């Protein structure tokens, strides 16, 4: 019996090569579907708004010191840009395959589901990096207009921001593989990142008075904190009554190792669980 008779002449590419194929076409889809440009426009709007406000009102917080400038400009808004990117590119990455039935086109092919997941993740990461790049360029452009140098802490902050992006995308992909409805996964991810995480963080810190080390947004504080000098203390307890005594308020600030660990662990856990969920999820 001749085996070759019916076997395919095509050699199915390695899983790694297939990851690249998925990344390429997902990026093409982002560009074509205008998803990328909408996100770019939002980033541009935030940038223009900041540029105009700082240029016109010349707020002291921005303009008294180099570090203060980067802390006020970058430290307060970059996490927002990252979260938006995560929602835009990751919010329905997996759920959309089920809801829109595009999975029926791609999945029944000689390709592992993990290659599809990872390929889409990398595409979302690249697209978000481009967005983050634009925001970084605008930040630096303004910074160099007002001050001559760039503080070394900005480099650190940028690296932390990248790690945060990785963690946020890990989380949004995980969340989007929990659901079969795109709008549901997008909405819940947005609510979680924009309100719930911060709310829990404040409740835990303020009422329960323990350090909210298990909240991703708490870890992301290091992006802004590294730009303040001196670095804020891990735990501060202040009295609420002038002159001391009475009820106290404890505030927590993630230390750099803590922040890195929180973001890193969030990524690893959500990536693994998200992959397993997608592997096991049924198209029905």
């Amino acid at each position, binding site marked *: 019996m001749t085996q070759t008779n*019916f076997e395919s002449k*095509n050699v199915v590419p390695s899983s790694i090569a297939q990851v690249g194929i998925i990344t390429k*076409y997902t990026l093409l889809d982002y560009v*074509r579907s205008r998803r990328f440009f909408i996100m770019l426009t939002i980033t541009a709007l935030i940038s223009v708004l900041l540029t105009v406000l700082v240029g016109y009102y010349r707020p002291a917080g921005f303009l008294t010191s180099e570090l203060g400038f980067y802390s006020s400009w970058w430290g307060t808004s970059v996490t927002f840009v990252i979260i938006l990117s995560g929602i835009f590119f990751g919010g329905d990455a997996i759920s959309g395959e089920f809801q829109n039935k595009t999975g029926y086109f791609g*999945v029944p092919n*000689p390709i592992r589901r993990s290659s599809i997941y990872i390929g889409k993740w990398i595409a979302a990461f690249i697209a978000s990096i481009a967005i983050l790049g634009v925001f970084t360029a605008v930040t630096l452009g303004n910074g160099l207009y007002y001050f001559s140098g760039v503080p070394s802490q900005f480099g650190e902050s940028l690296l932390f921001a990248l790690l945060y992006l990785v963690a946020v995308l890990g989380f949004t992909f995980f969340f989007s593989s929990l659901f079969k409805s795109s709008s549901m996964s997008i909405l819940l991810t947005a609510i979680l990142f924009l309100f719930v995480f911060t709310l829990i963080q404040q409740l835990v810190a303020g009422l329960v008075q323990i350090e909210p080390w298990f909240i991703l947004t708490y870890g992301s504080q290091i992006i802004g904190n590294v730009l303040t000098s001196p670095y804020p203390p891990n735990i501060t307890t202040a009295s609420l009554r002038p002159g001391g005594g009475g009820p106290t308020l404890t505030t927590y600030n993630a230390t750099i190792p803590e922040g890195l660990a929180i973001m890193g662990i969030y990524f690893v856990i959500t990536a693994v669980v998200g992959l397993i969920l997608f592997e096991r999820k049924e198209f029905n």
Partner: protein
Amino acid sequence: MPSIEAVNLTKQYGAFTALSGLNLKIEGTKCVGFLGPNGAGKTTALKMFTDLIRPTKGEALINGVNVHTEKKKALASVGTLIETPEIYSSLTPREALTMIAEIRGIPHTERKKRVEDVVAELRMEEWIDKRVGKFSKGMKQRICIASALLNDPTVVLLDEPTTGLDPRGMSEVRDIIKALKGKNRLIFMSSHILSEVSDVCDEVAMINHGKLIIYDTLPHVTAKFSGGNNVVEVGLMRPVDNQIVTKTIAGFPDVVAAEKIGDKDLKISFSGGLEVQERLLNDIVKLNIGVVSYKPASSELEDVYLKLITATL
């Protein structure tokens, strides 16, 4: 030889059994029709052959390879169309199909031509560089069929491939499927269009309530349930007397039964081949009852289908 095999293949949704212990081995170059009423479990079975869902028990094998545990290997040379897939709406057929071609490892040098060829085969050349988002249902279906044929697969799994196509599209797809048989391919397709199945399939597998009822060659299946007789349908231009049908025609040599199926339509079953069929036509015409058409009944498979399905309800 290409093959697909279900070994005790079972799918349960909670307490509900969508497919129950399907054992079926199909091997060789042929087209097998997969029949059964709505909800019988056809799509469920096909989804397990493409790893869209996991079996609760048992396994699905393609060319001897387990689809769930070794998906990449099992589907290496398979073309599939399950339910109605959607394509990323911002991509064009050329881009979407090139993506599939890359995933399946069609060499770089052949990709462009293969994509253009299958698109032409499905008569979508004009649309190859337009975005899929604005396509009609049938146009998308054509692209999905094109994607199933893209890598010249040895095994083709199709779930109601002609739904949504216009009449010409249906007949074109049938011709494509017939042509595949000539190329050493195994085609397994579900369908509700029995005339289509009689036309293109060599064998049929029928399921109901998640259980296999019969799997045999088309002639065997029809012969087994029509008692080995042939059936012709006669169309008349005016109503005919009952007597003539039940007495005269039923009394002709070799005629097993004759009945009116409408005011001006008769159904006659007879034993014997083409000679008997010709003599019978002569005899009926001589009766001067206004014969305007005379053709072998196309509903043979339908009869079998209805008999089998009601028997298992």
